[in-house]
């Protein structure tokens, strides 16, 4: 029986409101805010990136796991904003956490779902006995071209999960659904991603999230109504809510994990921050369903069962909602341009 022994979140403290971005571009803030379901989004400071976010989140995960960092045999960071194109983020994070030198490290990329891909890899390693514990992280300082629809949602944050034996949350099973679907991409050397506008909906997000979820349910032989919490990837609030409605999942089961409304889309960190927020409040014997989505495209679906041990670890690190609600500072578009290094002269 393997699963999550410790989890941790991190979200930068700066926020920019949807209406502030809309003001600059001459758009109607109400229409955009209502359309996307995003009130404000997180913005990283000048010295924050995928590596620093990963370190913060992983330290929280370590605090909950209460294990020796040297027992972590592998570190995989999923992100589409690794600070270096060549040179891994994972080595910096592993060194900062004290896991080096006897471990496996690699950076992962699968648009918004590389974090859950990392979870599957370390789960497999743990199950195979290759490592005692593995660390999987999903973190991003995602990019949105000025004036593009993505600018209202592209945010920063991440979550880390240590997977191993005697878990607080058992990973019962996982199922993936993957196809070649070019809905969103960023080529080498490009600062901002491109997307297929409405093509990102039905044939991309919905097809993969819904099919992966059905696939998992069939694999574990459960009805979706048996789950106490459900988290889907959140590029905005509109998409996951529509997918939740497809499965007739009531609000009280998905609102705790719907973190996008207050922080935006943290890409590789998005569904994992939702999961982290749910784990912060979950009770023993509750069941959690998680389905990520990454453009390109694919979805990883997980069935999780909460154990008694969760009560011992929940309060050992800051909660996800603390990062979302507390200590936040609003910035205007000018500051946002500076922090995101958008000004090119």
């Amino acid at each position, binding site marked *: 029986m393997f699963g999550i022994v410790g989890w941790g979140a991190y979200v930068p403290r700066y926020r920019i409101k949807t209406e502030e971005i809309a003001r600059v571009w001459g*758009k*109607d803030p109400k*229409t955009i805010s209502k359309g996307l379901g995003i009130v404000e989004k997180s913005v990283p400071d000048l010295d924050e990136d995928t590596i620093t976010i990963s370190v913060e989140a992983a330290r929280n995960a370590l605090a909950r796991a209460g294990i020796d960092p040297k027992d972590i045999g592998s570190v995989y960071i999923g992100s589409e904003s690794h600070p270096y194109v060549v040179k891994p983020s994972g080595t910096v994070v592993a060194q900062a956490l004290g896991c080096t030198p006897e471990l496996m490290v690699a950076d992962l990329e699968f648009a918004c779902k590389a974090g859950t891909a990392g979870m599957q890899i370390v789960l497999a390693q743990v199950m195979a006995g290759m490592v005692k514990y593995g660390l999987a992280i999903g973190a991003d300082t995602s990019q949105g071209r000025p004036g593009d629809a993505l600018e209202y949602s592209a945010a920063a944050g991440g979550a880390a999960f240590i997977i191993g034996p005697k878990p607080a949350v058992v990973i019962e099973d996982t199922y993936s659904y993957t196809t070649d679907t070019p809905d969103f991409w960023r080529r080498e050397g490009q600062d901002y991603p491109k997307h*297929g*506008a*409405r*093509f990102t909906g*039905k*044939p991309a997000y919905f097809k993969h999230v819904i099919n992966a979820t059905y696939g998992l349910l069939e694999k574990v032989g459960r009805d979706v109504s048996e789950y106490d919490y459900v988290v889907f990837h959140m590029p905005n609030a509109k998409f996951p809510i529509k997918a939740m409605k497809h499965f007739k999942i009531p609000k009280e089961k998905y609102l705790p994990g719907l973190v996008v409304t207050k922080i935006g889309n943290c890409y590789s960190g998005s569904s994992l921050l939702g999961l982290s927020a749910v784990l912060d409040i979950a009770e023993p014997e509750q069941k959690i369903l998680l389905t990520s989505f990454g453009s390109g495209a694919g979805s990883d679906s997980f069935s999780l069962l909460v154990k008694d041990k969760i009560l011992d670890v929940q309060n050992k690190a800051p909660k996800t909602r603390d990062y979302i609600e507390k200590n936040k500072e609003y910035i205007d578009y000018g500051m946002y341009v500076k922090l995101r290094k958008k000004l090119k002269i």
Partner: protein
Amino acid sequence: MRNVAVVGVGETAFGEHWEKSLRALAVEAGIAAIRDANIEGADIEAMYIGNMSAGKFIGQEHLAALAVDQAGLVGIPSSRLEAACASGSLAFRQACLAVASGEYDIVIAAGAEKMTDLQTEDVTTTLMGAGDQEWEGWLGMTFPGLYALMARRHMYEYNTTREQMALFSVNGHKNAALNPKAQFPFEITVEDVLNSPLVADPLRLLDCSPVSDGAAAVIIASEDAAKRFENPIWLIGSGQATDNLALHDRKSLTSLRATKIAAKKAYEQAGISPEKIDVAEVHDCFSINGLIALEDLGFCERGKSGKFVEDGNIERGAAVSINTSGGLKAKGHPVGATGISQIIEIVKQLRGECGKRQVPAEFGLTHNVGGTGATVVVNIFGKELKERWV
């Protein structure tokens, strides 16, 4: 010249066909029309296909050959017709003229467009090819912009209101809600239109027809050949006309001269007046163009279209049932397919096959516009072929 009739119709649903290519859509519509007519491919003597810009939308030219190849009809003559959003109607007219001339007895006329492979801004640029690129396009004009100018002028000259324009979209959606082939089969309110995002002042998103994929096809037969079909619908009048390509060269921004010329010809051929038309599909690429069409086609007086719509005259079963299919706004507007799709709706109305959106109809009209009105085709259809119409 011989009389001609439509003896078979078929079309795809209009919408975002992410998993179907242009050729797949065209073949789907063509097979549906052949089945509807209960003929075989070998009966078809020629093909005419309307398409605006497959070259820019999907990088494919030489569409006439592609369509005939994919349909398994290699050998017969095939022609592609282009007049921007009126391409479908041009294909139909050329097909009808070829049959009327005595050259063929049975031909197929189709229209197809695959627009969703491009991003919105590229679609807007491609569609601008229907205007005057040198004098309008390169100066930054877009089609929403051009029609916004027409809307502004109509509001200025005739006190047409924002609400009256919105009502045209509301009517289309009300009908589309009953059309399984429609891209937007749901109702909207005037408030929905007025609160939708601004596109080009005063036009808002719900004043504008969408980007769509789709194809439509009809089988056309000569009078002698048509007699062996169950329910032929006769083309009793047809007119095609042109105007200056660029908007600024026109005498009026609030009337399409080409519509008036084409309509006059069609009414004269049919020997009927506008009051006799029971059902019409008019070219509402933008709500304002729907209003202008009502005036130019003679359904109401010049400048009175807003009030005409407000008084409920375009609703199903009213003075003239307008856009029972949903129109370009709500049924969808895959530009090359639109003209043929309009004809299909009128044929089905006259056959009595429109289910919940059926209206009592003896005469139907289609109005298809290219660009801002530089090409217009008007067709009038009747259930029967009688001397009194001539």
